[in-house]
Every structure is written in C-alpha cells, then in structure tokens.
C-alpha cells in the first residue's frame, strides 16, 4: 500500500521536536494537512547535526519521490539544497521558512519581524517591575532570527525603563547555544546569573529552554521568558513568551497554495511577517503578568501594528552601545 | 631393580592410597599431555614425579588439582572414587598445590594471600586478628619465617614460596603438591625447603614433589614415578635406585652429569668492565658498586652468589637494560659500549640468555618462529627492504627446533604461551647460542630444565666457549657453577668479594664467600686472570 505525502517538511539541524521552528513549522503543516485530509510527512536529513547540503538534497528528493507537491523547509542553512532541488523540480513548490527569495518561481520565503516580539517581551518584563534581565540566544550570534529577537528585547526593555525612569541591567550572551541544544554548561551559566541576582532570563533557542528551566528550578524567584511558541505550559516559571506565528503562517501559506493562489501571491515572494499579520507578539490567553496588563499590552501591540513604534531590525556590531536606561553586559 | 608392577590395580588391595590417579588421559590441541597415566601416593610419603620438559607432570598435577578435566581416568582418595571439577573440590579433599608459577596476588599482603578464599569474617567484614596469629604460629612450628604484613611484590622468591606453603598449611591440607618448587630458589633456600618438606611428611602429610634435580629427589623422596612424553614409565623406591637409573628411565638413555670439557685456552680480552655501579630500586645504596672484571675469549667465567646480591642489576647494566651510574665503563671487544643501545650490543657480539623467560625472553603471544628471530628479523637474511622473508624465518626456525629438540604442539607455528616452560627455555637458548656472539651472558640458563636438557645446554655452552666466545655465566646452582666454569667470581652485596679456581676450591668455600663470611682484598677482587 503506497501512501503519498503531498506536504513534506524537511527539518533543519537539530531534532524535529525542538520546541523551535522545526516543531513550529511541522505543527503548522500538520494542522493544515489533517484539517484537509492531505498526506504529510517530515524528513530529517541524514547525519543529524553534521548534515551536509547533499543530505538535505537527498531528503528533498525522497520527499518528491513520495509524491510531495509542496516542501516546507525551515532554516536558512537549507538555501543551497533548496536552490538545487527547486531548479530540478519546477513543478514542486518550496516554502523557505526563515529564508529569503531565491529568484525561483516555485519558491516562496517567510521571514518574521522577531524584533517586534523581542521588543514586546523586554517592555513587558520591565513594566512588570523586573530590572535585572538576561538574554541567552542560540546560533552563537550567527542566526539572524535569534539576533533580531535579542536586539528587540533590549530596545523594548530600554523603552520601558525610560518610561518608568528606572535603570535596568541586562546580561547578554550567545555562549553555549551554538547548536540550540541544552547543555550542562548553559545550565550552570544561567544558574550563575540567577544566583547573582538576575530575575528574568529570555531563553531564545529551541532546547536551550531546558537548561534555563532547570537552572531556574534551583531559585524560587527565578523567572523565564519563552520563545517562538507559547511556552507557559512548560514551566510555572515562564512569565511570557516572545512568539512568532510559525505554525499559523505555514498553515496560511499552505492554504494559499491549495487555493491556487501560488502564482498570484507567493511565487518568488518573501513575506516579512510581523504584528500587522498577527505573526509576532506575546500570547494573551495564558497571560500571567500582574503589573503589566493585557490592555496595556494590546495598546502597545497596536502601536507596533500601525507603525507608530518600529523596533529596529538591523542588529549593529555592538549591541551594548546607545541605551539610555539599560546597561548591557556581553558574555562571550 | 623391581619397578612396581605396571598394573596398578593389584597395588590397590593394600592399605588404600592417600591419592590414586588411575589411567589418566589428557589431550591438548595437537598433543596428548597425559596418556593413560597411573599415580599412587601413600599416606605420609614424599613421592617424586620426574620427567622431561613437556612430559606432562604439571598437567597431571593440574588434573589432580581440578584445573583441567581429564578425557578419561579416575581419581581415588583413601580408596574412594572422587571427582575433582575445580580447585574447590581439591581444597575440600585436603589437596593443596604450590604451582610452578606462584599463584599470589602481589599487591596483597602475605596475610591477605593466605586467607584469600577462606577469609575469617563476621557478617562479611574481615577479621584478620585470629588468622594472623594462626599464620605466625604455623610459620613458627615449621620454621617458615615470613612477615604476614609484607606486600608479596616486595618479598623474595623464597618467601613467596613459603607463603604458598603457608597457604596450604593454613587450610590444613594433608596432600601437598609441589610443582618444581626449587626451580627458582637459592641453594640456601632449597636446603631450608627440603627440611620443611621432610617435617611436613613426618607430620603424616602426603607429598607430591616435582623436580628436575635428581639430587633433591634422591635426598628427600621415598618413591619416584617417572613420565616420558606423556606416558607412564614406572615407579621406583628411591632407596633401591640411582641417579643414573632415574635419568635413564626418564630420558630413555644414559645421561652424563659431569660436563667433560677441555682445558680452556683463554685468548684476547672480550669483555672488560670497569667500576660498574648501578642504583638499587629497593634501597639507598647501590645494587652494584664499582665492579670491575674481565672475561676473555675461550673461557667461562661464572658469577656465583645468593640471589639478590646484585647479579641481576649487574647483568641488566651489562646488556643495556638498565643505565649504570656515571663513571662506569663497559667494553666489548675493546670497544666502549657503555652508552650504546641494546640493539648495538646485540649486533656487536653480545648474546643474552635472560633471567626471566616470560618477562624478557619471549613474546608469549608471538609464535615460536617469530620468537626465534626476535633479534634478527632486521638482518639481511630475514628481511628485504623492510619486508620480512617468512619462508626463510620458517626454514631457520625449523632448523633450530630440530637441532635443539624444542617440543611443542604445532612446531614453528606454536604460540609460545602454550609451550611448556622447559621448552620455552630451550627455544631461547637455541636463539641466543645460534646467533653470532663473541660474548655470551647466560643467567640461570638451565632453570626448570630436565637433566637431559641441562646436559645438552651445558654441552652447547662449552661448545660456544671452544668456538672462541667469552662466556659470563650467572648461576645460583653451585654444582652448575663447579661443573661449567673456568673461573668463579663471587658477588656479595653488589661487590666481587672473591675470585676462585673451580679445580682448587670447594663448594663449602664458595658458600662462605657467598654468605659474606670471607672476602679477598679488593685489588685482587675481579682482577683479570
């Protein structure tokens, strides 16, 4: 019995259930496929985190052999592989999540304004009354999305601090997060932050959350800000999450494709999704903050939505400089 | 000459034997180690077991001790059939064994080794006090003096030997097996051991005694069973037999005990040692201090001495295994080799029969043939452009095996480990004597060899002397010393304390020097003849 899988997800390095964009993408596709009774399947390039472009190409080819009509591939590392396969298979469509337009009509790209979510999270944390923040990011400082989250986080914190006239300390680090994986080193480092007074840590990268959570476990007053998806279900320590609507947007793109709107709306496009598309923000239905209310949040959110506030996306060389009320200490 | 009747069963009718092994057969790959052998041990007797290397003695004893299972044959204790599956059964039957290679844990104390397996304990926690007293009491009564708290690795071979004996006594065994107990001992220690064994027999313990040394057997044994090539030859009463007859039974021909050699014709000096000193690993003072001696072509110089007086260290320095202290000088054929490598010495006239055949002499996991070319594999004859010429290696080793009658399961391809120790030794001697050498350093070359082999080795050594080699022999066995040497140097506490002429001196005199009771004035000590 040969099943065909029209919708394919080819994962980026790291595991499928990484609580990050692999999982987000997968769940979006899954949701759409199951709602519309379409066969779907994920493909993990061979050799795990040592996967080469050819391993990705092989995975994509396998997907096509299994009858894939559209391939969703998260992660900028997939550019080379996708370009090759897309050229060879013009009839197959590709969705490049966290990527960019490749100048091919059968490829569409989705990027997010992570800086907006970061901004909102930073602002909320400071408004809630926290003045000692921490940011730990994945990708070793080399992942554009993560960097935007972090930079937005500082901007938000600074804005709020100015407003309240308080001064905020922020530890800022990409240490031990290169592979987005949890590690005893990361846990020890973050525990060190909490021990030396840090109140909230923005855990910005897939499985790294486990390290931050475990570190927080030892400190009753320690708090966490989640990322990508609403992580409040993961730990009672999570005060909020800087989400980006991965699943939603993947689901929507799939919808556009199956409604025959590919050529008109998606072909060779790179949509940059943000508050305007409800693709960035903080989850309101699991709201737990006391001093910073949902209404205050919505007001701020709308300002960003209608462009009154525009968090800067381009991350400068030196993120520590130019803040009035935030002292950023880099750790590397 | 009445041998016991070759049909053992009739013997069985008298008082039952303490141990009777009937028609034991044990086969190993490619060889029948024991072939239908019968052995009868009377209560309270000292029963010697005699045979060539590889005759099957150790194997037979291993069977009795439950280390091997025989293919066929029965074992009776006090007339009752018993099966011995493992050493436990043997221990339970009061059978104890001193193995050829001591079975001691050398990082344990003497006491721990003795109580191992029968540890006195409460709720599993060791209770050593009582055990300690028992051990002291035993060593008191049998005159075995060992310090129960010494680490085995720190004590002499003799003490280890006595530890093994204490192990048996501690377990109140009444059947005691000694597999070549004297092979590793000094004359003094041998003397003591003999007394101990006699004492044990007098106690009513029955003793099986394996040795290649006929004097020892003549001295203490009541009866002697002889094996040859795994077969039962016969059992004789010692009082009714002679060394000659025993050796004849065992080898199947008459054996000469005195080496007949022409008068030496010493030529030019081959080995010259000046002020050689070597640090000691055990104590502060030097193990060897300012030893000077010369050995000339065509003479056999023997270094006599009690084990542990620096002979080993001296040889190590001489052969390059150890670094001598500054100021020492070693010349071979007039060339100073003090700083030269072992390889250089080996290729410039030095042959060395090492003291420890398993540590230095052989690579036990290499085949016999690989061991035969251990110092020659790089010579033109055996390699070409770095590639070993296996055909030649095979031919050469087959030749040596033939010439030196080295016995083993699969000939040149036998793994050295599986060879009987005696034959391992023969292989080493063959290798060293057949290499070109102007100087032969032989340390206890006949340890663990049977009389036939000893005779052979001695002949070969003399032959190499007559061929113009200088021979330096280090031996603990006085009759070997007397038989073989042209000059005797006695080493005591790291110094040459006397030079003696084998024709004029006596064993007693040498003994005095070895014991340090007498010494010649240093100048003469080690002076060139």
């Amino acid at each position, binding site marked *: 019995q040969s099943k065909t899988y029209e919708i394919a997800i080819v994962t980026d390095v790291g595991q499928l259930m990484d609580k990050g964009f692999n999982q987000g993408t997968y769940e979006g596709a899954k949701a759409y496929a199951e709602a519309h009774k379409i066969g779907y399947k994920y493909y993990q390039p061979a050799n795990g985190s040592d996967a080469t472009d050819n391993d990705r190409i092989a995975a994509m080819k*396998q997907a096509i052999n299994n009858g894939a009509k559209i391939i969703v591939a998260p992660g900028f590392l997939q550019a080379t592989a996708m370009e090759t396969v897309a050229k060879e298979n013009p009839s197959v469509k590709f969705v490049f999540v966290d990527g960019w337009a490749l100048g091919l009509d059968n490829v569409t790209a989705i990027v997010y304004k992570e800086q907006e979510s970061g901004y909102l999270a930073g602002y909320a944390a400071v408004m809630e009354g926290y003045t000692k923040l921490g940011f730990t990011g994945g990708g070793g400082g080399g992942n554009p999305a993560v960097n935007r989250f972090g930079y937005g986080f500082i901007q938000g914190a600074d804005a709020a601090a100015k407003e309240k006239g308080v001064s905020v300390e922020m530890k800022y680090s990409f240490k031990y997060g290169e592979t987005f994986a949890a590690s005893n080193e990361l846990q020890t480092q973050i525990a060190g932050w909490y021990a030396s007074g840090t109140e909230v840590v923005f855990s910005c990268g897939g499985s790294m959350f486990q390290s931050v959570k475990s570190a927080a476990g030892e400190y009753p007053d320690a708090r966490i800000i989640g990322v990508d998806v609403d992580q409040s279900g993961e730990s009672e320590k999570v005060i909020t999450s800087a989400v980006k609507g991965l699943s939603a947007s993947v689901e929507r793109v799939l919808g556009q494709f199956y409604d025959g709107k590919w050529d008109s709306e998606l072909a060779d496009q790179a949509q940059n999704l943000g508050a305007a598309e409800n693709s960035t923000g903080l989850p309101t239905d699991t709201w737990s903050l006391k001093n910073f209310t949902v209404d205050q949040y919505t007001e701020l959110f709308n300002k960003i939505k209608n462009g009154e506030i525009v968090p800067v996306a381009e991350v400068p060389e030196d993120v520590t400089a130019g803040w009035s009320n935030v002292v950023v200490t880099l750790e590397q | 000459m009445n041998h016991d009747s070759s049909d053992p069963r009739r013997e069985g009718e008298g008082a039952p034997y303490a141990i009777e092994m009937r028609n034991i057969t044990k086969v190993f790959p*490619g060889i*029948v180690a024991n072939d239908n052998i019968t052995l009868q041990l009377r209560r309270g007797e000292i029963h010697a077991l005699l045979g060539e290397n590889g005759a099957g003695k150790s194997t037979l004893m291993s069977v009795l001790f439950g280390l091997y*299972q025989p*293919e066929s044959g029965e074992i009776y204790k006090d007339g009752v059939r018993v099966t011995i599956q493992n050493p436990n059964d043997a221990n339970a039957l009061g059978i104890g064994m001193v193995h050829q290679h001591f079975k001691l844990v050398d990082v344990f104390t003497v006491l721990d080794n003795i109580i191992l397996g029968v540890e006195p304990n409460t709720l599993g926690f060791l209770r050593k006090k009582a055990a300690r007293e028992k051990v002291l009491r035993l060593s008191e009564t049998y005159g075995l003096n060992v310090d129960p708290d010494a680490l085995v690795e720190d004590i002499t071979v003799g003490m280890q030997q006595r530890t093994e004996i204490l192990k048996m006594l501690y377990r109140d065994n009444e059947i005691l097996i000694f597999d070549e107990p004297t092979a590793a001992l000094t004359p003094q220690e041998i003397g003591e051991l003999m007394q101990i064994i006699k004492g044990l027999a007098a106690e009513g313990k029955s003793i099986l005694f394996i040795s290649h040394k006929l004097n020892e057997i003549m001295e203490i044994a009541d009866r002697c069973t002889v094996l040859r090539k795994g077969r039962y030859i016969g059992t004789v009463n010692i009082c009714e037999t002679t060394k000659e007859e025993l050796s004849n039974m065992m080898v199947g021909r008459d054996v000469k005990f005195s080496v007949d050699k022409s008068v030496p014709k010493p030529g030019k000096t081959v080995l010259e040692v000046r002020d050689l000193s070597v640090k000691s690993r055990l104590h502060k003072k030097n193990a060897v201090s300012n030893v000077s001696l010369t050995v000339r072509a065509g003479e056999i110089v023997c270094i006599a001495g009690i084990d542990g007086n620096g002979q080993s260290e001296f040889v190590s320095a001489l052969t390059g295994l150890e670094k001598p202290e500054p100021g020492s000088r070693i010349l071979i054929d007039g060339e100073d080799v003090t700083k030269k490598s072992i390889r250089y010495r080996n290729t410039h006239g030095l042959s060395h029969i090492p003291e420890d055949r398993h540590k230095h002499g052989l690579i*036990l996991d290499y085949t016999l043939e690989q061991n035969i070319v251990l110092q020659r594999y790089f010579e033109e004859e055996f390699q070409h452009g770095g590639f070993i010429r296996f055909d030649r290696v095979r031919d050469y080793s087959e030749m040596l095996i033939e010439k030196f009658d080295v016995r083993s399961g699969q000939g040149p391809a036998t793994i050295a480990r599986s060879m009987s120790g005696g034959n391992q030794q023969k292989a080493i001697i063959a290798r060293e004597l057949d290499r070109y050498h102007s100087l032969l350093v032989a340390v206890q070359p006949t340890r663990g060899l049977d009389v036939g082999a000893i005779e052979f080795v001695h002949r070969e050594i003399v032959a190499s002397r007559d061929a113009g080699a200088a021979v330096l022999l280090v031996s603990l066995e006085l009759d070997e010393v007397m038989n073989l040497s042209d000059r005797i140097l006695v080493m005591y506490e790291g110094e040459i304390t006397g030079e003696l002429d084998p024709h004029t001196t006596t064993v007693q005199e040498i003994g005095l020097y070895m014991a340090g009771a007498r010494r010649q004035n240093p100048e003469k000590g080690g002076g060139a003849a």
Partner: protein
Amino acid sequence: MKNSVPPSQAGVLKNASARSILAALICILGGLVVGFLVLLLLTVFAEDISVAEAFSGIVIVLGGPFSGGSAQDILFQMGNMLFQSTPLILTGLSVALAFNTGLFNIGAAGQYLMGAMGALLVSLSIPTTVVPAAIVWILALLAGTLLGVLWGAIPGFFKARFSVNEVIVCIMTNWIAANIVSWVFKSTGDRFINVAETKVNFIRKTASNGVATATLGLDKLFAGSYMDISLFIAILIAVVLYVILNRTTFGYELKACGYNKFASRYAGMNEQRNIILSMALAGGLAACGAAFWCLNGAQDFKWDTYLTLPADGFNGIPVALLASNNPIGVIFSAIFLKHITVGGSNLAAQTSFNEYVSPLIIAVIIYFSSFSKLIKDLLLRRMTKAQHATPAQPADPPPAAGPDKGAADEDAKTKEE
C-alpha cells in the same frame, strides 16, 4: 590428518582470516535478525504501520543506497555514502593501528578536529591565484595530517615518557582540541568563516578558493554527489597499512611492543619510540580523514565544536572492532556502517518507521560482533575435532582412551568455557 572432514571445509576453516570473515558475517546476520524483530515490535505499537512493512523495512535498511529510488537517486546516494565513508575508514584505521600496538586510541575525535583545522587553514589562506590549486591541495592535506600526527603523539609521549595511561590523555586531548579549534577560528574572525552564504557557524568551503579533491568525473558518474577520489586514496592507505603491519619489520616491532614491551626492549627495539610512533601515525590517519572531508570542496565545517566532538572520531572504534582490527576489514566495515545509515534514513523517508531505527540496528550488530571470538573458536573446534580423531602423538594411542577421544575432548573443552 584431517581426512575425516572434507578437505575443502577444513581448508576454509584452517585459514584464520577466512574464519574471521565468516564470523563477522554471522554476527551481522544476527544483528539484522534482531533488527527485524525490533521492526516487528514497532509495528505492534505504531498502529499506522502494518506488520508486512517490518519485512520491507529491513530490506530497505539492508539495501542502503539501493533503496534510494530511481537509478539517479541510487547513484546520488551511493556517491555520498562512499564519500562519507572515507573519513570513517581512516578513523577506523587509526583506532585499528593503535590496537595492534596494544594502545587504545580513543582520541581520534580530537585528532580529526586538528586535521580539519590544519587542512582548512592552509587551503583557504594560500591564494590559488598565486599557487596552483593542486599544490595547495597537497599542502593542505599534509598540514592537516601533520597536525594530527603531532596531536596523536601527545598521548604516545605521555605513555612512553611518564607511563600515563593513553586513554585518559586521549580523552583530555579530545576536548582540548575541540576548544583550540573553536578558539583559532573565532579569533581569525571572518577570514575563514562562511559569511558569503551567511553560514557564520561554518568555515568557507575550500572550493571558494578553488581547492577541491579531484573527482575524475566521479561526481558526474554518481549524479552530482560528493564522490571524489579520496575514497580510493583511503583504500590504498588501508592496504599499505595492512602490508606494514603484517609483512614488514616495522609492523613486527609495533606488534611486539604491543604484546610485551620488556621483551621488545630486551630484543633491542626502542619501545618508547614505537609507542609514540604508533600513536602519532594513528593521529595522522584520523586527521587525514578529516582533511579529505574538508578538501572535498563542497563541505561545511562547523567550527564552534567546543561542546561536541565529531561522531566519526568515535565511530572509528566500532569500525575497527567490527573488522577485528584488520586494515582491509576496516574498509568494508566502515562502508557497511554508512551503508546501513543511508538505508536507515531511506527507511524513515519511505515508511512510517522513525529515524532512530538504524542506529539501533547498527548498535546491535556491533554487540553481536563481540560474539565473533566465540564463533571463531567454534569454527576452529570443528577443525581441531576433526584432527583429534587421530591425535598427533604418541603414535599408538592407548586403547582405553582411544575411541571416544574426540567427543571427550569436546565436552572437556566446553566445561572449560
């Protein structure tokens, strides 16, 4: 002598290496059987998989690249597989060589990283506009290998000089290497990092400097895969190593030191030198494998390695063991492992079995390979039993023990087990 068995069979069994191969095959078979059972078990738990799929599943795994689909896909997968087994062959050889000298080289991972660093630094910093690419390629290969030689020499030195157990030094040097490599590339900034493709955790592909291993059209033949000639060089190295170990005086020395360093010394060999030499060579082999990987031209090298060691470093151990440390065997065991790996990802891609099945099958095979000694002994016994039907000596066996000796010998031995 062995008239009681068909000479052919006895002949086969007599040959030691034939016995090893046979044993290895039996082990692999056992591993696959267990793997199949695992798949069956999974079909029970995962409702969306039918029992029938278990069988097709094991076939897919066993098929490796051959279960890749169209001829093109097969060639493509096979090319990649062959290329990716090259470093594995070399780390396997590295471990095997050390084992032959009685040393356990668990430091291949670190040596591998050093090799990669050396090769990349050289191949990316010498402009091919000045020096011909071919020369740069060779220099890079040498540089990488040399770094590995030095790195491998460290445990060797510690063992020879201070008699420190090589295992501990290897483990330490692994992590030291991991940090040094990251440090070096971090501090050289963007000179080597792949900014062009915005892959800042990776080092530039050597092709960006025009340096790449010759393919002689193999990449085309294998449908645009990574295939290049490095595999053949690796095989050549394996053969040379085999000859060195078993035919040359050098190999004789290395093994002698492995078995008994005192006796080797007595025989005039320089055992300290041999220990260092052997570890250094082992290091060189592992590093060479890394160099081949990087110099392929199309490979990304992740420089931020200080928290993780390259898998190929450790996989060298099972590869060597599966081949019972025989250099020729290593070629096959390495390719076989990659083969199963590819089969595994095809399995995940084509069925509903997940990607964790093939590692399990591989592990089981390795475990079964520990039975190979037993199997070899059994094979050997079949032979010796035949021989004992008429024992070597004495000429005339005593009637008493004569007839059933063969059998008696059998169970005597089985008791000894």
